């Protein structure tokens, strides 16, 4: 009920005029991000286009020089509880001395408040989330003993435990095996069926049309955004990648990965 009230009919995520620079070099220039409720949106663009930066700015991890972020019509800071974040797998040290279950339990920390330790109910929620990504058998495994795909699924389970409305994912498909890729796709669809919204930085142009409903094409500026069938065109991809991309628009020929520029 309270969630219903707080979500309303507004856009799930609306970032306006985001501008951010590292030492005079603009990384994001006047970028808008508009994510309707209940869609799967891909953020696509070449290396250095600012995809991760955009995600981190939306999350408030980076402070933009200009622009603001609203979640369901209200400032991000008020709506933080509705947003879950899946960082890039490579952003942490997987040799950290802990278990998969413990990592997933970290998703319950925001509900716990300060000082209080997670108890049986938090652990059972974490176990349920691990089961949802097919990792229940690995709950007590030291995290460095997991494969890349398994580590990614642990991160996804940690976000699931947050029971958010919006999921922001940084390259969830990066370097995962085929099993994990299928598991993630199914998970994204299950989230959408639940009315949740997902925004994911995505690298593989081949699968954009198959996995996502909406796409934002980014290269420092926003090149185009909207439903995949309208926006994900050869023309827009050329504008995004600087005219050097071959075999695009979801129709394949050969190299599906991001062209090196």
């Amino acid at each position, binding site marked *: 009920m309270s969630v219903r009230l707080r979500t309303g009919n507004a856009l799930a995520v609306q970032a306006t005029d985001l501008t951010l620079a590292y030492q005079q070099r603009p990384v994001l220039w006047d970028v808008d991000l508009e994510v309707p409720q209940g869609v799967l949106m891909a953020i696509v663009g070449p290396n250095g286009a600012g995809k991760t930066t955009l995600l*981190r700015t939306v*999350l*408030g*991890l980076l402070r933009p020089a200009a622009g603001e972020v609203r979640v369901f019509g209200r400032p991000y800071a008020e709506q*933080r509880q509705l*947003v*879950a*974040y899946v*960082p890039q797998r490579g*952003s*942490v*040290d997987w040799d*950290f*001395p*802990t*278990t998969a279950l413990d*990592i997933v339990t*970290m998703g319950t*920390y*925001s509900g*716990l408040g*300060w*000082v209080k*330790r*997670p108890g049986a109910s938090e652990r059972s929620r974490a176990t349920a989330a691990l089961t949802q990504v097919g990792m229940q058998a690995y709950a007590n495994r*030291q995290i460095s003993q997991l494969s890349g795909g398994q580590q990614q699924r642990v991160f996804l389970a*940690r976000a699931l435990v947050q029971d958010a409305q919006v999921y922001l994912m940084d390259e969830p498909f990066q370097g995962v095996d085929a099993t994990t890729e299928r598991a993630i796709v199914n998970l994204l669809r299950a989230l959408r069926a639940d009315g949740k919204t997902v925004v994911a930085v995505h690298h593989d142009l081949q699968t954009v049309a198959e996995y996502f409903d909406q796409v934002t094409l980014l290269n420092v500026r926003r090149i185009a955004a909207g439903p995949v069938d309208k926006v994900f065109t050869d023309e827009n991809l050329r504008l995004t990648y600087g005219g050097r991309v071959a075999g695009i628009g979801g129709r394949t020929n050969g190299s599906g990965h991001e062209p090196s520029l």
Partner: protein
Amino acid sequence: MDVLSDLFLDYTLRTVALGSAALGVVSGALGAFAVLRRQALLGDAMSHAALPGVALAFLITGSRAPLILMIGAAVTGWLAAVAIVSIVRASRIKADTAMALMLSVCFGAGLVVLTFIQRQPAAGKAGLDRFLFGQAAAMLESDVITMAAVGALGLLGVLVLWKEFKLLSFDPDFAASLGIPTRRLDVLLTSLLVIAIVVGLKTVGVVLMSAMVVAPGAAARQWTDRLGTMVTLSALFGAGAGVLGALLSTTAETSTGPTIVLVATGMVAVSLLFAPARGLVWARLRAWRSQRMLALEAVLADLAALAAQHGSDATHPHDVGALHAVRGRVVMQRALAELAAEGLAQRHDGGGWSLTAQGLAEASRLARTRRASGDAP
């Protein structure tokens, strides 16, 4: 002399042991976090930066009370950490350069102030130079009480904010996305590390204190894959190294800091080599065993191939001289001997070798499992 009975009867030894145990527990527990957060060098810079703090605190107050000197040390150590972070954030200078810079600048400044103090005629100046390499024997009851009280404060901080510090150490970005004030927590955890450092300064000395922060954590990481166990073990290792090193240095009259550090380093060496899952010795042993198993299987496959060429009589003896060239004579001889011992191969009178019936069965079983698991034969 019986050190053990002296430990309980001798006032000096008991004071030394209690104080070193306290400093070891605190630096071990907080050092474990420093190791996980890759702050080992920061700890080194902060402990060197504590020297000018000690000297200035004495210069300003004229007091040698442990708490006053500790506060002076903590202030400059903490300021050095802030300066390092600010330099990295505001300029293009990288973290390692900033840390090396602060370390040497602060240490130099500390030495200058120390020499200045030494030339003053004032009484009670003596003893400050002990802060360089530490002297356990000079520990007084008032030192131990202060160390225990200040150290307890540091430990309490870790216990209360355990889950926050764990999350901060593993994934600060995710912590920030939950709305946890990571910047402030980072400052707090680093401040607790400063506490751990100043607690040990008088016993271990500024030059080597960082080893007491890093060594127990590095050793403990080898033995466990749980953060709670690691921090506990690290505290125990710290206490062990502290007590053992301090007692050794007091009885053998060597410098305390270096002695404690040598003991701690010994613990690291043993842990690196012999810890059950991560120990290098076991890893080498496992590699060697699996290499020998592979060699054995390869020779088995070679002999099976020879037998197959020979058609009907599978146990016909073969000259294995040709195989020596491929596998190496020593490897071949050892593999053949082991196969024979297991009844898989047999040596014939003419010096030739063949598989036994059992060996043939084993070879074809291995070939099947190889194919099933998709390995190249």
